């Protein structure tokens, strides 16, 4: 159940509920406010930028996994398409930042339209298998297409030093300014995301998650709805990828590797799937853990895998999901 349904179901008027209710009502503002103070609280802004980008990536993934109930293991392809689309536009075509971000999102939309169209022909566990395989296919294509993508050594020269927003000059070499500049994109994306969830379409995809047969009996074309959900998910993940390309100044081929898909699944699970805040909570926890763990081991993948197993086995609701279940019942 989502926050909205849970809150609507409970009629007691306790103070926590009132708070929960008002947060839910202004969820975009709440997330953006938390994100706005993040770089001030965290030890260094680079971590905050990563949380911002991967939180958005996990949010996009959550549309498909948490809200539509489709487990994709190929979202690296969408994130990577956004990153390469944006990166190629800057490094090879010399476009400005905003057009480049649009290029990234457009490429991610194209890739998600194709992968989505093929993957929705399968259901359940097949969906995970097919998305994983198709994403790996994109990895191979970009790996071999050296003239455009840089192949194994990655796409270099995605550098944007400064950007002029009317009278405002943003210095992208300054991490704080970069963070708040990126936050503008994320805030707009989150507003759009919240709007999608509250639309009739949002209700339909949640209906598909709860009961496919009933959704079909209500006269909805499941294939079209699932495909739209996949493509919309691709737009958010693509934007996250594009921002990541600008942030790092390089697009590495690892972006498209299956571990990126695994990372976003882990973040969403850790935070709480099907919740609005969950993906950001999960991204923050995951990246903080990675940051701490990489101080004492080079084998972060081992730790990540163990966290993954522990999450699925003992903690399937995730951190934010469990918090919600406690306060709202």
């Amino acid at each position, binding site marked *: 159940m989502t926050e909205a349904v849970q809150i609507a179901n409970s009629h007691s008027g306790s103070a926590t509920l009132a708070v929960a209710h008002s947060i839910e009502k202004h969820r975009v503002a709440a997330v953006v406010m938390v994100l706005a103070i993040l770089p001030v609280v965290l030890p260094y802004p680079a971590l905050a930028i990563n949380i911002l980008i991967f939180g958005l990536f996990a949010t996009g993934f959550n549309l498909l996994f948490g809200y539509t109930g489709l487990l994709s293991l190929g979202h690296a392809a969408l994130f990577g398409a956004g990153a390469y689309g944006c990166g190629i536009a800057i490094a090879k075509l010399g476009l400005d930042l905003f057009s480049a971000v649009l290029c990234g999102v457009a490429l991610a939309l194209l890739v998600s339209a194709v992968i989505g169209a093929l993957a929705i022909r399968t259901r359940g566990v097949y969906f995970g298998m097919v998305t994983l395989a198709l994403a790996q296919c994109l990895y191979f294509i970009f790996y071999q297409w050296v003239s455009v993508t840089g192949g194994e050594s990655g796409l270099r020269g995605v550098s944007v030093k400064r950007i002029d927003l009317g009278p405002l000059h943003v210095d992208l070499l300054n991490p704080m300014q970069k963070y708040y500049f990126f936050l503008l994109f994320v805030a707009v994306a989150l507003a759009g995301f919240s709007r999608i969830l509250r639309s009739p379409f949002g209700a339909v995809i949640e209906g598909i998650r709860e009961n496919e047969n009933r959704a079909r009996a209500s006269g909805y074309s499941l294939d079209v709805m699932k495909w739209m959900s996949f493509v919309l998910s691709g737009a958010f993940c693509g934007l996250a990828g594009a921002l990541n390309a600008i942030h790092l100044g390089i697009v590495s081929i690892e972006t498209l590797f299956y571990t990126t898909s*695994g990372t976003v699944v882990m973040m969403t699970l850790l935070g709480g799937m099907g919740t609005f805040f969950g993906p950001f909570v999960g991204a923050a926890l995951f990246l903080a853990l990675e940051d701490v763990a990489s101080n004492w081991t080079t084998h972060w993948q081992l730790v990540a895998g163990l966290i993954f*197993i522990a999450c699925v*086995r003992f903690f399937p609701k995730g951190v934010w999901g469990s918090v919600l279940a406690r306060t709202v019942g």
Partner: protein
Amino acid sequence: MADISFGLIALQVLTGLALGCIFVLVATGLTLIFGMLNVVNFAHGAFCAAGAYIGVFAFGYTGNFWISLVVVPVVMAVLGMFTERYLLRPLYGRDMSYPLLLTFGLGYVVIELIRILFGTDGIPFSAPAALKGSMFLGDFSFPRYRLFVMGFTAVMLVGLWLFIEKTPFGLIVRAGARDAEIVKVLGIDTSKVWLLIFALGTAIAGIAGFLAAPMRGVIPEMGVTVLIEAFVITVIGGMGSLPGAIIAGLLMGVVVSITSYFAADFSSIVMFAIMAVILIVRPQGLLGRPEAAR
């Protein structure tokens, strides 16, 4: 293309069949586990890599290929039993994505453990002395080891078929795949059957990894490559269908082998292209039943 002789094509087909045998073994283990436990084992490729490393390690220790070929399935079966008993069993009855996610995480752990124990670089491994060299078939030669892989795979598949179709335990397996509930009602402890099937599936994966070692090398990342190949083959062949996995596996082996000869750049992509076509034309796979595409 007049200079491309019949012999050359035949050689590529044979090479492809040997590669296909590896595909078949990996996909068979995956299909067996899915058919019975309804679990897609995303750690299957990692188990395959683990089998290869255990085999290479045992070979270094004993110096005997045949002993290693026995050690691999035994160790892998124990590993499989542990996985099923302590990791997967508590998740039965929950949504199908939970075991999937758990094994996905397990794959990370296994591959990273391999990196820690054996290093990140690949280990070279060549065929045992008795199987080295080539055999002359007509006017062209073919590596003896690949013929051995084909023969060994055939023997294993026949053994597996006899086990499932002709033994009392196989009867339980077949019945359990159709309706586990009824089998339970008849007084059979299905949890033991599932434990053994999972162990069997992982043992076959381990053997496949070890057999592939002299042909494809041994690196930790093979766990990922092999997993994806097995997925593509099960989707093409039809999920849960053993004959489908065999036909699709051999077919893909030949296709990959021929493509890598004529257009090497496309050899890693051709499988996915075929999978995409299958998904459009026949989403349940070559031999899958339509309702099985759950």
